[in-house]
């Protein structure tokens, strides 16, 4: 168990790295706007499952990397992610007991919060250039939550990440 715990952070980082890769995968045709925020979903999962490991620090640093990946401005994703993860950490005890559907509702509001923050920051930068499809990932992200949940749960149990 001790050995597993030593390598646990590596597994968490790998899943988050894969989430970042998924974020920039080209979807066929013009369906790219459907691609949900996989990084935030995985961060939420890990912060609910192992809150003593994955906290604000993870959220902030992966937010910074996401900024690097496609933010015009440093700090926007870092800010959004750390706020959402802060919320998740506060509520993780209650959220863990929720059924999946109810969790998904909470995830919806988490994603909405993050997207709202990004919207305000982007809008301050170049006003009124965002299309309505900017909000679609919130919805698809909510629908993808059960998938993320079961996959990462499988990873967590199989690799005994504690």
């Amino acid at each position, binding site marked *: 168990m001790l050995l597993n715990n030593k390598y646990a952070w590596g597994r968490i980082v790998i899943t988050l*790295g894969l989430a970042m890769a998924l974020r920039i*995968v*080209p979807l066929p045709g013009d369906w790219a706007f459907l691609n949900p925020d996989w990084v935030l979903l995985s961060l939420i999962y890990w912060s609910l499952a192992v809150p003593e490991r994955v906290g604000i620090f993870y959220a902030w640093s992966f937010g910074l990397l996401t900024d*690097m990946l496609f933010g015009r401005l440093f700090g926007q994703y*870092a*800010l959004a992610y*750390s706020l959402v993860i802060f919320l998740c950490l506060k509520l993780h005890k209650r959220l863990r007991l929720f059924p999946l559907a109810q969790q998904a509702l909470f995830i919806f509001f988490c994603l909405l919060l993050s997207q709202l923050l990004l919207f305000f920051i982007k809008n301050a930068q170049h006003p009124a250039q965002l299309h309505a499809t900017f909000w679609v990932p919130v919805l698809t992200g909510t629908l993808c939550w059960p998938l993320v949940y079961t996959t990462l749960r499988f990873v967590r149990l199989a690799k005994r990440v504690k």
Partner: protein
Amino acid sequence: MLIAVLASIALLFVDQKTRHLESLRTTLSLLTDPIKYLVDMPTTVFRHTADSVSSYAALKKENERLREDHLMQQTRLLKLDALEKENIRLRALLENSFKLGEQVMIAELLSIKMAPYEHVVVVNKGTRFGVHPQQPVMDENGVVGQVIRSFPMTSEVMLITDPNHAIPVQVNRNGLLTIAVGSGQTNRLVLPFLPNDADIKPGDLLITSGLGGVFPQGYPVAVVDKFTSESDKPFATVTATPKAFLDRSRELMIVWSNSTPIPLVSKQAAEQNQVLEDALE
């Protein structure tokens, strides 16, 4: 928590107001660039296998076609050379300096998708090859966009159709100057600053005007496809279709424009004059 929020807000402000974070970007790109290449890998592998299993006959056919193309281009280039020389001579007569001569480097697109509401693509050449922001990018048909950020291994190119992009153009037929702004759709540019009585009609070719200093003069940008004048509005509604295959081409050319204008009198001519003067003395 408070630290993270304060740090993010500090970063936001510092990045918006100054350019101090470039070194941090370069360092972090060492972590994110591998992800880009990882996502691109399946496509690259697929193309390589497709290349290596294509038949001898197909390759031979392609080779023949390319050879013919090359011959034709070469002949056209010969003529272009002569025209270029003539142009320089005429410009010299008009006592007008003339910028000419660009260097290009071919960069390949990585098949990854950045933020869907932005028209930004990533190419596989970066600062290691001397790519720097604000360089124009073309394909074989016309202007594609400009480099907005460059990292050691990759750089980001903003397409001319991005809503935040504008490019100074002129109508090839009569030299009318205007600005083409991206519309957010991959096959459309808008020209929002033309008056209702502007001399422009569908089918007109728009070329870069060279004003603004980013794009060299004379490259095709788009073809006007609709002109509607509305009497109750100050400006006409004009849209154009980009010449470049923005969503199809895989190879792009990054251009270094020669910033020193060609002198009015060529060096050889100057030397000859010198020789003549010496002889006369």
